[in-house]
């Protein structure tokens, strides 16, 4: 399947992040088209396009927008989730660095459709240079009259505020994000009520991922048929695939949904020379790992689900045979332990237990009984917490055990760094340390 740069089509132009670069290729024409079309029709277009949320869950975007009640007297809020922090996910960050105006124009259209006069971009604090690029894009859009009061004489007002987070993976969860944006600890809320009804400041709100919103101007300008010419019936459109790990040319590869991992891997120069794929994750550490025999699976929501994983953020990580599965899983679980917000007991306590027991395996001191214990803990966490962080924490180990049980057995007597020389897994292996 061919590569199809859309969002990334002009990133090689030095001013790609400026309004001049964006407008050279038709930027800021889509929102005028949307204004002429009408808000309900815009929602219909997004629904008909089949665009699904690019933040991980894959929820249909148009449907999400339609949940925001209309005709009420409450203010509505659009909140962009730019808190990209999922291990493996690195596609919104480059998008905002190189093409922030697609996000701003998408915000104008989305806010117009759901009748929101205030939009927030909640960006993680750890990427100051990306903050600068988005901040500058907002200022350029205001200066051009595309944001503010009575935009282009349309009668539509929109204020956009860029808001830096402060280091908390949990704030990528939409209700935790809303609490954080309200100036509180970022802890998830019990749902229902969903944000569409009771969101930011207890008003109807919609939280969308950066890449999702950045798709909107291209969709409006080119139409539903064009959009659906990419991908599959259930997974239409194109995707910024960020390919990382043990590959020769890691990077951003934009392609239709439905491209296979093998094809993407080939575009990325293949697994690093002299090595072979051991395991791979289609979209972040929160989705179950897969094995090389599944490399021909199309990267769509439905096909990846059918082989027991999830497309997630669509940012595949590839690991070769030098990698210790025990070490990788222990690392990811340590991450969830670190990032658990502490609100729900199963997640707060369970991630500590998982981490403790997995560290025993990493040191070569696990027992076979511990494997059952780990599965038991995962089952006690999954589905028993307010948000998906708990479910995510319960994901890496069962998949790893399913495919690599032998390696965990080996870790009952041999430390991971003895079974697998850590130096061999590094990108600078071969160079003197």
């Amino acid at each position: 399947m061919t590569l199809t740069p859309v969002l990334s089509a002009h990133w090689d132009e030095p001013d790609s992040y400026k309004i001049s670069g964006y407008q050279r290729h038709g930027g800021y024409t889509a929102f005028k088209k949307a204004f002429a079309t009408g808000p309900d029709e815009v929602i219909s277009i997004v629904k008909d396009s089949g665009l699904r949320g690019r933040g991980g869950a894959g929820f249909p975007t148009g449907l999400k927008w339609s949940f925001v009640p209309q005709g009420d007297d409450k203010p509505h809020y659009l909140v962009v989730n730019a808190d990209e922090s999922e291990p493996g996910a690195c596609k919104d960050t480059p998008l905002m660095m190189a093409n922030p105006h697609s996000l701003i124009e998408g915000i104008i259209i989305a806010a117009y459709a759901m009748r929101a006069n205030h939009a927030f971009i909640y960006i993680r604090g750890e990427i100051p240079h990306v903050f600068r690029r988005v901040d500058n894009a907002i200022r350029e859009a205001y200066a051009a009259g595309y944001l503010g009061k009575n935009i282009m004489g349309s009668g539509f007002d929109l204020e956009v505020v860029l808001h830096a987070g402060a280091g908390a993976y949990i704030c990528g969860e939409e209700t935790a994000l809303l609490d954080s944006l309200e100036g509180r600890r970022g802890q998830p809320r019990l749902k229902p009520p969903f944000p569409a009804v009771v969101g930011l400041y207890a008003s109807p709100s919609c939280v969308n991922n950066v890449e999702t919103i950045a798709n909107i101007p291209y969709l409006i300008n080119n139409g539903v048929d064009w959009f659906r010419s990419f991908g599959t019936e259930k997974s239409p459109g194109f995707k910024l695939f960020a390919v990382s790990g043990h590959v020769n040319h890691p990077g951003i590869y934009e392609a239709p949904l439905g491209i296979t991992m093998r094809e993407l891997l080939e575009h990325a120069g293949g697994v690093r020379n002299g090595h072979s794929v051991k395991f791979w994750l289609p979209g972040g550490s929160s989705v179950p790992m897969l094995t090389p025999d599944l490399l021909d699976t199309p990267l769509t929501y439905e096909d990846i689900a059918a082989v027991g994983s999830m497309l997630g953020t669509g940012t595949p990580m590839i690991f070769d045979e030098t990698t210790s599965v025990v070490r990788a899983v222990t690392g990811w679980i340590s991450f969830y332990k670190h990032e658990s917000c502490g609100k729900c007991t199963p997640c707060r306590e369970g991630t500590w237990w998982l981490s403790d027991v997995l560290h025993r395996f990493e040191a070569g001191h696990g027992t076979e009984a511990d494997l059952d214990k780990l599965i038991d803990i995962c089952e006690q966490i999954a589905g028993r917490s307010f948000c998906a962080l708990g479910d995510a924490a319960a994901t890496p180990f069962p998949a790893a055990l399913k495919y690599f049980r032998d390696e965990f057995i080996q870790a009952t007597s041999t430390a991971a760094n003895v079974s697998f020389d850590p130096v061999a897994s590094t990108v600078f292996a071969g160079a003197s340390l």
Partner: protein
Amino acid sequence: MSLSEKTREQAREIIARYPQARSALLPMLHLIQSEEGYVSADGIALCAEELGLTTAEVAAVATFYTMYHRKPAGEYHIGVCINPSCGILGGDAIWEKVSSRLGIGHDEVTPDGKISLERIECQAACTHAPVMTANWEFLDNMTPESAIDVVEKLASGREVISTRGPRIRTFKENELTLAGFVDGLVDDGVQADEQMLAGLKRAKELGQSAPGVKI
């Protein structure tokens, strides 16, 4: 150090951005760090006063987020990503080198206050692994050698330039940026680097493109 009237004015500027005042708290805490180098008791008091909260309410928020320091950060706050993809691809080895070279561990500061060190989680730059940060600016595709070079330069006041961003400024200066005050550095660094352009370059080589989208 007591906070200046200017800081209070800037805090009010932040508050004015939001429909509801309390939303300003996170950027205000970045502002406090831009003055104090950490979230000081005075800073907590200022936020509480301006937002009509108790100091306990502000402290409860400040202690939730890892970017807020409870003691002064170094002039250069160094992060080494140890999350599996970076850690396995070399981050763990880099951490060992940097930590032993500086003689400090996670969440510690060198005695001269120059460098603080943190084992960081995913920095959204896995395509650039192994990744480090200096005051959160990207230091991509690091090796143990380049990592030591960076910290030695920063420790001795020499210039270091982010691989995707500006010259590394001080921790306090970058915190002011995150509080939402323009620093004029938006044009520094590349618009996109090799990894960000990998797919576009490949598409051009193969003559592939999306229908109707010229590249």
